[in-house]
């Protein structure tokens, strides 16, 4: 059986849609259910719902064979996975934002859910910063003066606008990626192919 790791939300909905369109159906699945594991009707696959940040971990450790995850999460993760395709949905940007530009007369403080991406970015630009890791509502950090700026994902920019925050730099763009465990990719290739094709809309990778 092939295990597919998904993070509840838009990426999972879209991924599930594609599986169902290809005939891999999950009639037991109910969006409102608190169940975390659902088997496909043909018992050939199962989906497991995990936190977005944990998708690469489950896949890299072989607990899940396949996963759908944002590139932003992959960049932050240290899991070793094969990134088979850009699924071209869930597009967003990873940006440096704040109420005003970062101070130059002292070490700026950055709050982020993405400390590794932030560190890599500021190191690459020779900017010495202190990074505070937050788990959510990162926009609050500059408003409450916890940080001078934030590194966070921006989709429509509406949340930033409503909190009077500005985008100063785009670090990278992100979209949903199809990832696979390297060992599973080799030894379960036949069983994986229909799932990869389904998620990648007919394209085998």
């Amino acid at each position, binding site marked *: 059986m092939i295990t597919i790791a998904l993070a509840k939300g838009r990426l999972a909905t879209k991924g599930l849609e594609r599986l169902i369109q290809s005939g891999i159906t999950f009639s037991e699945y109910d969006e409102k259910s608190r169940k975390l594991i659902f088997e496909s009707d043909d018992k050939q696959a199962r989906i497991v719902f995990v936190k977005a940040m944990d998708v690469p*971990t489950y896949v*890299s*450790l*072989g607990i899940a064979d396949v996963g759908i995850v944002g590139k932003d999460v992959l960049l932050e993760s*240290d*899991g*070793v996975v*094969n*990134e*088979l*395709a*850009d699924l071209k949905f869930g597009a967003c940007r990873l940006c440096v934002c704040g109420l005003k530009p970062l101070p130059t007369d002292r070490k700026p403080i950055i709050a982020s859910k993405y400390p590794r991406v932030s560190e890599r970015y500021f190191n690459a630009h020779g900017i010495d910063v202190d990074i505070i890791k937050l788990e959510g509502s990162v926009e609050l950090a500059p408003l409450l003066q916890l940080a001078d700026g934030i590194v966070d994902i921006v989709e429509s920019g509406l949340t930033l606008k409503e909190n009077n925050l500005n985008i100063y730099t785009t670090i990278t763009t992100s979209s949903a*990626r199809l990832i*696979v*465990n*390297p*060992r599973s*990719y*080799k*030894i*379960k*290739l036949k069983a994986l192919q229909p799932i990869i094709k389904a998620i990648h809309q007919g394209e*085998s*990778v």
Partner: protein
Amino acid sequence: MVLQADPTMSLAHYMSKQSESSLRKFAMVSSVHRAYTLQSKRHEHFKQVGIEVFYDQGNYDEEVCELALKALELAQIKDVVIELGHVMFMPSLLQTLRVPSVLLEQILPLIQAKDMPLLEASMIDLPLQVQIIIKKSMTWFGPVEDVVDKIKSEMNDPSLLGIVDELNQLSNYLKQLNPKINLILDFTTQKSLSYYQGLTITAYSPHSAQPLLSGGRYEYKEEESSPSMTAIGFGLNVALCAKLSTIQPTKMSTIAIITTPEKKLQALFKANEYRTLGNRVHVLFDEDEVKTTDYDQMIVIDKEQA
């Protein structure tokens, strides 16, 4: 911090100091500290058993792979998949396709990571036909016949087909030894250990994310100017194999052998006999206080028996 390095390099260093190069075969049991293959920036520490063969003539691929198979058979692990690869295939393919060397250096790690979006982005300036072949080559792994046919239908370069034939012949040899073997070929292999230069062998189990066994052929050079040595070997992760082995551990009995100082030697021999059968044995003298409930069996060797 002291790290226990892979013994392969120490052996190669030792061999390079020998005045006469000749065939040398080593068996090793070692404790290894190595980059964790599942998560970057982490290290793991494990016990491995393995072999290394250093040689300046001939070919020891078959012998070493056969030993690797035998080791796995003895460990009685279910559903093992053996993967043969060749780290020179992809660089040769890219050279054949006239990929500029700067780009080749960028592309090889992406092939190793099978990072398709970045690979596609890196190839954007290459001719479309070259891009298509490189993209196709990312699927050149799987059951032997399938992958060999796929490559032969796409490529006719003799050096590439030479590598394909080399792995195909080795697979045939291994299949003759064990027709039930689950064998795959992977021409996209890029080993994380840079010293590998040719054939690689890896054994996987669907029940573990870590490989059970890993090895390959490599060239070692003490210095840039020194002659290179060829070697082939493998290491088998002992704890992982023990965990996945279907061999049931035999129940160990605790036996007390009670004797007199005069019969001590006889008792020790007897103790050794029982130990080799997998028992825990205590040799006690008759004046010692013996708690009978601590033992499954008690044997008395005294003057009368003698």
